């Protein structure tokens, strides 16, 4: 009954993804104009956007390329700190907040992509659980390095040192990244609208990629590496391509995220964050882009919602139980039965990939 891949399936997915995001943006804007939005939710809008971009970009690696990465937060970290440095440097040169944020994001994407290449070239030779643990290791390495990074700026320009601060700043100089203490006094220039635009760009690029010869090659590598090789597709090259594009978007999400807080430390971007994003991707459905959007947004709001419902003490416990229950249900006979019942009613309707 699921035999026919709907001609419009891919286009329909794009429409749904864009539809959800635009509708959500409008609703939130109306709510905030009429004053119907709670303070805590308002504070979560930018992080939600960052998580959505993280989830969609990780889906490119895990769902479309089919390789498990537990290091996505590492690229977010690279993007976050690059973004901080760039915006600080450009404070006077580019007075417009929006433009400065945009420039920072582009530089952050490039930096994260470079790190993506450095990490990806060696580790993508592995696969499966080995790749998972190695990407996790890479994420922790990035965290360690950022933790001992000292960057300061004065009239002579940027100063950088690793492990110990080996420079002294002139009078009026500014410490940007201060080792384990991280960054403080960030000028918060991320806005919900900036996040919204970033999501749209991410969706546009990644959905386009999936419907192109490069995207097809990536999916071919996922479905059968040996067969992909046999028809002239370099598996290493397309694995790296997907990994690096994914890293670049994580970098942009990092800038967006960092510029929403006044203090940021490297410890924030550890493997737990990578795992959190992976949960979004799996629950949203592997390879299902709009699923990632919804899962990232809902699961970020859920703990907050539970707090409102007076489950404050138990909210993370409930979150954990829901997560386990969802995974069990997703793979249970009960779900299969329900699907079959629905399937017999709408025989021709296609079914998305289920985690």
């Amino acid at each position: 009954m699921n035999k026919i891949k709907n001609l419009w399936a891919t286009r329909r997915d794009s429409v749904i993804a864009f539809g959800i995001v635009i509708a959500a943006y409008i609703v939130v804007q109306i709510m905030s104009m009429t004053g119907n939005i709670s303070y805590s939710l308002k504070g979560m809008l930018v992080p939600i956007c960052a998580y959505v971009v993280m989830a969609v970009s990780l889906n490119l690696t895990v769902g479309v390329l089919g390789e498990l990465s537990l290091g996505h937060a590492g690229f977010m970290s690279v993007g976050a700190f690059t973004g901080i440095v760039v915006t600080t440097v450009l404070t006077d040169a580019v007075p417009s907040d929006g433009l400065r944020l945009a420039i920072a994001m582009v530089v952050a994407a490039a930096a994260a992509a470079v790190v993506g290449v450095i990490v990806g070239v060696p580790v993508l030779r592995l696969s499966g659980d080995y790749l998972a643990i190695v990407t996790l290791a890479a994420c922790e390495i990035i965290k360690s390095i950022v933790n001992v990074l000292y960057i300061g700026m004065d009239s002579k320009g940027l100063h950088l040192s690793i492990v110990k601060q080996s420079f002294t700043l002139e009078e009026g100089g500014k410490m940007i990244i201060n080792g384990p203490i991280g960054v403080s006094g960030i000028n918060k220039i991320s806005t919900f609208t900036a996040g919204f635009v970033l999501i749209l760009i991410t969706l546009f690029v990644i959905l386009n990629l999936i419907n192109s010869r490069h995207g097809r090659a990536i999916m071919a590598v996922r479905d059968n590496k040996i067969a992909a090789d046999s028809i002239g597709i370099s598996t290493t090259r397309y694995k790296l391509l997907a990994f690096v594009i994914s890293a670049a978007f994580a970098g942009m999400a990092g800038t967006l995220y960092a510029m929403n807080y006044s203090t940021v430390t490297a410890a924030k971007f550890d493997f737990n964050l990578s795992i959190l994003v992976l949960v979004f991707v799996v629950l949203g459905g592997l390879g299902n882009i709009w699923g990632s959007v919804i899962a990232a947004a809902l699961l970020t709001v859920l703990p907050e919602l539970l707090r409102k419902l007076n489950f404050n003490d138990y909210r993370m416990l409930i979150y954990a139980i829901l997560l386990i229950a969802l995974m069990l249900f997703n793979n249970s006979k009960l779900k299969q039965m329900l699907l079959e019942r629905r399937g017999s009613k709408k025989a021709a309707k296609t079914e998305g990939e289920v985690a």
Partner: protein
Amino acid sequence: MLNYLITGISLGSIYAIIALGYTMVYGIAKMLNFAHGDVIMVGGYMCFCATTYMGWHPLLGVLLAMAVCTVLGIVIERLAYKPLRSAPSLAVLITAIGVSYFLQNAALLIWTSNPKSFSPIVGRGAVQFGDLQITHVTLVTIAACVVIMAALTLFTGKTKLGTAMRAVSEDKGAAQLMGINVNTTISMAFAIGSALAAIAGVLLCSAYPMLVPTTGSMPGIKAFTAAVFGGIGSIPGAMLGGILLGIIETFCRAYISMELSDGIVFGVLILVLLVKPAGLLGKQTREKV
């Protein structure tokens, strides 16, 4: 120098014990059990409660921790992992993450986030060999690791259940056809792994006496790294990986940088896997075309 080496071996022994548990479970169930680290934490709290609140003898505390963790391991496996035996490995991974969240947050509710200061299970004394000073905790840790490794090797090599475990890890379907009860065998692996986690938890908290709900998380990840490093599924590999990791970490902390030590440990893991993709003692498999 020698002192650092001893400290490294001691820390490595703890990693090795956790890694042995990881390897048992991974070898048989082929899953990354992210909750393993949190079982360590539960073991630590159990022993803490027994000795501090109830005033039990430390040895009884260890036994209680082992008993609770064994049961916990079996329950987790039955409730959360068994229904997913035929599901994609990612689904099992996410479930394991769910279990990990669950254990951490349950611990947070029961014991709060205030650190508990753990009193070591053996006295704080030390033995003196010339310049070299070795604490009792270190001695017990290293001894425990050697005993466990020997016992596990004997168990998997010589006993019927151990043979069944090896059979299940090679080929579940074939093992079942040979009349092996796969479910019981997998439960058994979880039971042993969790009991080891309990011991590791007590030893870890004896050496680093700060107990919080996330205590087990990082050692769990590092021990898994150690298991992969040595060749996952291999008992001597887990032991070797654990001890090497402990030594590397201790030396990095002493001579290079506290903050960078974790990074260097993970860097070594990546290097080893690039040279030997199946780990130091793992065996390479190849897809048939």
